[in-house]
């Protein structure tokens, strides 16, 4: 198992946002997390990437206990997150934002190649490479956030609602990219509201409800599960 989350609790002040959840992500898998607003999906991501301190429980990555490791050190271990709300550096250009994604990398040639790949995936970004990140449109920022995460060449990629605010065509594209990079060997933990897409592309998935895991299974299983269909897929 690449990532093992065991019995994790996390608090915001007095509010307990996660009540002991356990999730595993195997090497080479796409695992989706779905759930309603406020279920705790983002919170889980933050616990994995190290942005929020954990109350109890452990997080293990590639066998190492990283529960109390600093966020920047986790990046070096190979965990990279594309955060909810995009987290674009507003005063940096598109190019610099992408470079930030490769902050911990030293292989100049590899970085250049990856840059080309990202620009190939999102031609819009190539057009705007000198524009300040903060002035991009919402969707452009989303592309930038995903592209930046790709630049880190992580072992484990955490994507928090990558399709948010994107036009239908681009959404399609994003999911194709996700599948593609997964096939190239990147493990992915994916949070998505677009459960249809997420489940059909994920190997396995978990359903979160108010801070607890209520269901888990393969993507296909959940896609056909009636409860899931009612709650998260909407009336067909």
């Amino acid at each position, binding site marked *: 198992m690449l990532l093992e989350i065991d019995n994790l609790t996390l608090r915001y002040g007095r509010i307990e946002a996660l009540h002991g959840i356990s999730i595993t992500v195997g090497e080479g898998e796409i695992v989706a997390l779905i759930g309603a607003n406020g279920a705790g999906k983002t919170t889980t991501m933050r616990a994995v990437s190290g942005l929020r301190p954990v109350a109890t429980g452990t997080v293990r990555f590639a066998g190492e206990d990283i529960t109390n490791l600093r966020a920047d050190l986790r990046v070096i271990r190979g965990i990279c997150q594309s955060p909810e709300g995009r987290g674009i550096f507003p005063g940096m250009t598109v190019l610099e934002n992408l470079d930030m994604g490769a902050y911990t990398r030293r292989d100049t040639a590899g970085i250049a190649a990856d840059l080309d790949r990202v620009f190939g995936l999102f031609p819009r970004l190539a057009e705007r490479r000198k524009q300040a990140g903060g002035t991009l449109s919402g969707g452009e920022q989303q592309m930038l956030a995903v592209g930046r995460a790709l630049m880190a060449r992580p072992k484990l990629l955490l994507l928090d609602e990558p399709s948010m605010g994107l036009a*239908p065509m681009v959404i399609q594209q994003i999911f194709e990219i996700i599948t593609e990079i997964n096939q190239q060997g990147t493990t992915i933990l994916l949070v998505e509201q677009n459960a249809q897409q997420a489940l059909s592309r994920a190997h396995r998935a978990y359903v979160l409800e108010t801070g607890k895991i209520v269901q888990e299974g393969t993507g296909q299983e959940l896609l056909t599960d009636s409860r899931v269909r009612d709650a998260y897929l909407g009336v067909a």
Partner: protein
Amino acid sequence: MSDTEDLVSLPESEAPTRTDLLVVDHVTLRFGGVVALDDVSFEVRRGEILGLIGPNGAGKTTCFNAMTGVYRPTSGEVRFDGDRVSGRKPHQINRLGIARTFQNIRLFPEMTALENVMVGTDSQHFTSVPGALFRLYRKRPKPEELPVVDSHNGLVRAWQQTRLVFAKVFGISRHTLEERAGEQKALALLRFVGIADRANELARNLPYGYQRRLEIARALATEPKLLCLDEPAAGFNPAEKEQLLKLIRDIRDKGYTVLLIEHDMRLVMGVTDRIVVLEFGKKIAEGTPAEVRDNPKVIAAYLGVPADAS
């Protein structure tokens, strides 16, 4: 939701007429080399729900910004209900009757949900700062506005009684009355959008979906004639989108005119009366949902697949 009917006061509840409420008239907006809006013209008619769609970076949010005074068009102008919008400050434009929500939620994070909405009611206050300080302008209260006398403790009761007499003789300051009315209205609006259960929680601690709805309630509190929603369903799952769809319909049914930016086609197709499509800052199509859906230009630029793409 029935109890809100009388509290959410409506803008001249006229039947949808053909008259245009908002006119975007040949608006061009440049940022340095980027042409975000290129000679865009369209109008929003009273009582309708108009959808504004287009690929990422097409200029939709920029269009909102030009309408609400955040940016000034490079050329062209926006007219609202006969008044020029361009050149006015955001708060003045709000008083003309345009309210909006933001693509990246912008609530007042350290204020409670209720307080957030009450900020929206501010524009209905007539009391000025000295008025709030001295509270000299007093009105004869209606019976239901009088202080209640309900305590069993003699001392307290005496005090309440004094206040009652005082209010009867000297009236109650307009400020106090306005505050109370504002609070009632804010509560009603929270109930209307369905988040009254967490009215006293800080906005920053509300889940995402609640925050989105709170933004809508806050915008409604300013009693706009036109409500502009910028991707209200972003981050919602399909079930939640369904609820939102109902909410937007309810809003329209109350007589508001709505301008909606949204990428979720099911929502857009389900709720709008007409749709304007932008691409690269230019308007490429306009029409009913059915017309737009089948427009090859729109399909090529935006939808990708002919049918419902969600």
